[in-house]
């Protein structure tokens, strides 16, 4: 009996190595993590919060995590039966910037590149300003995908818009196509790029090569093992919810909601709906604030603070 289980486990590992991992097979069962605990080299001491598909939170040593790397071909397909969605609660954001930092760290990004950006927005003079975390919207009608001349950026069945950096020629047309300024370009060679020694996969959190475009990828390698993206798990306020439209569930790691009810009850909306890009990221309006907007200016690096000094709000209040 025990032997049989081992065999099963081994065959699963081989399955992973072959890069043919089908997400559906992974997203069930609580014993998932074991399958990825391949690193025998002891503990790094750094704990990562992990959400199992049962909705439980587990703390796991980072060194024990090995995320699956699917082939480029497989990365084009998307995880079967899934349609991912993100909900961002603007009432809770205080510009702690942990989502930005968590994402940058996990994706090995240089400091000059941010997949997640936090804007200070104010819709009009009399309306209230608010902090606006902005990942890629993974639009259902993505202009970036339409305009790409070589198919380097593509839309998957699970809704994720990804970039194949091996294919990207760096024409930057997608960057002008995206109305949300989501994409970043590798303007020079960053040493961070060299660290990744494994075979390339568009799903892996490896930094982009010089002269190619990259962006927020909804962390598909994490999703495959039933975890939420780094920005979600990094946020101390639980601002960002992630989930599946078909399952009608979103979670920020501590709370889980029915997506449809959350959107209905909290008047969820999509940013710049008028453009017709049909984003997969929803926002909950900045009501019942947990923090005054000014709190977002606390503990900021000078360089980050300077981003906001030219906003009408900061000018008015001399922040």
């Amino acid at each position: 009996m025990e032997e049989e289980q081992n065999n099963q486990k081994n065959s699963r590992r081989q399955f992973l190595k072959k890069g043919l991992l089908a997400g559906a097979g992974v997203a069930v069962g609580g014993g998932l993590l074991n399958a990825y605990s391949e690193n025998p080299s002891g503990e790094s001491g750094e704990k990562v919060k992990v959400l199992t598909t049962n909705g439980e939170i587990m703390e796991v040593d980072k060194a024990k995590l090995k995320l699956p790397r699917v082939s480029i071909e497989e990365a084009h397909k998307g995880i079967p039966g899934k349609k991912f969605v993100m909900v961002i609660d603007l009432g809770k954001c205080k510009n702690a910037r942990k989502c930005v930092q968590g994402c940058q760290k996990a994706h090995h990004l240089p400091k000059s590149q941010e997949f997640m950006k936090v804007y200070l927005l104010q819709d009009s003079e009399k309306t209230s300003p608010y902090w606006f975390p902005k990942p890629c919207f993974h639009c259902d009608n993505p202009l970036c995908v339409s305009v790409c001349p070589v198919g380097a950026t593509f839309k998957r069945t699970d809704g994720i818009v990804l970039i194949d950096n091996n294919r990207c020629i760096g024409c930057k047309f997608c960057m002008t196509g995206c109305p949300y300024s989501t994409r970043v370009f590798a303007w020079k060679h960053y040493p961070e790029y060299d660290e990744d020694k494994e075979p390339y996969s568009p799903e892996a959190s490896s930094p982009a090569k010089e002269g190619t475009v990259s962006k927020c990828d909804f962390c598909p390698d994490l999703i495959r093992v039933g975890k939420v993206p780094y920005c979600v798990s990094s946020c101390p306020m639980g601002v960002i919810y992630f989930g599946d439209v078909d399952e009608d569930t979103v979670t920020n790691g501590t709370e889980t909601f029915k997506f449809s009810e959350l959107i209905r009850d909290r008047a969820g909306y999509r940013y710049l709906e008028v453009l017709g890009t049909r984003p997969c990221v929803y926002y909950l309006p900045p009501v019942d604030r947990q923090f005054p907007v000014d709190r977002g200016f606390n503990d900021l690096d000078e360089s980050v603070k300077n981003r906001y000094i030219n906003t009408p709000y900061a000018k008015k209040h001399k922040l």
Partner: protein
Amino acid sequence: MENNEKQLLKEFAPQIERTSVQGYVWILFLLSVIGLGVYAFIQQVTKGHIVTGMRDNVVWGIYIVNFIFFMGVSYAGALISGTLHLFKTAWRKPVIRMAEFITIISLLIGPCYILLCIGRLDKLHYLVLHGRIQSPITWDVIAISTDIFGCFIFLYLAVLRDLANMRDFEELQLPKWRKKLYKALALGYTGTEEQKKRLERATNIMATMVIAIAIIVYSVLAWIFSVTLQPGWHSTIFGPYFVIAAVYSGSAVLIVAMWFFRKVYHLEQYITKKHFVAVGLIMLVLAAFFGYFTFSDYLTKWYGSEKNDELLIQLLFKEFYWPFIISNYVGVLLPLLVVGIAKLRTITNITLAAVVVIIALWLNRYLIVIPTLQSPYLPIQDSRPEWSIYQSTWVEWSLTAAGIAMFCLLFTLASKFIPIVNVAGNTQESNPDDVLV
């Protein structure tokens, strides 16, 4: 060869046979400017695009401005020479070759600028290997390559008779290889009735084709911008607007080229004030069209004042005030006045107006590309100034200068290879006094 053709060739022989000291200095100067461009290009390849002023917001800078500009200039040659040919405009003969050269040369330089915008030139072949027909860039690749092909055939047909003339002109003191080259290139054309008929028919077909292709090329170029949702770009008028702006800039370049070659090669006898006025009138009509399109485009943006359009227009009238005035006011009104008022119509004035038009049109493209990228839907919030405001660097300017130098160099070399004025058929009919205004 007819007698008058021989006479003409005799006159043009010196410029083809010899290059003056000034000529060599000029070529050396151009080569050194190109050399600087090559150095800048090496910098960009080795250090990455970080050496340019382009960043994540303004992802395309003056490279794409130059691209639009040179493609526009090329279009002018195609349309002007094609139309003049089809309408058998009598005065075209002395200037049509220049228009054709402008077309081909700028068509060779223009696409190089789009390559400079591309991050990974090593994967350029993916455009063919993995090309997606849904992408306007693929449309552009198809359109531009067709255009280059078509324009080459058109130019070749246009110079064929003169290549034969050069071959048959024995007094020409040239190295043997040059004579052999003329012989090979002339394709055995001797001017029999049958050959004349076929050449005429082929040229007519190509003139028509070249006009159509050029319209497509320039519209596709405009669609690269207008298919996006960016404020200021997402405009239905961009296709025809770009076409008009292109011919407009080309007519101005033609006037400047006429002025230079007239001075340098002493063509006062062949290119007269009448020719300047004739091309000037084309420029005038195009100026009016260009002004009309510009006005329509900005009026609708300003009047409805959608939030982002309003921000864009504010930006244009604040940070870009002078470029905006020069390109969209001076660039329209000056040619209207200079060519429109008979008293002001001198060769110098028309040429000066043309120079202003060239600058204005370059600025016009700059104002289409950069301010839009500087005012995206989500406000740029960045503490790095170079990330929010585009500052072109020496690399970009060196490569811009190199492009212009290459244009001048190829033009100079072309004029050393074949008379810059059409020799074949340059008979009485081309005497402008009989035909013009």
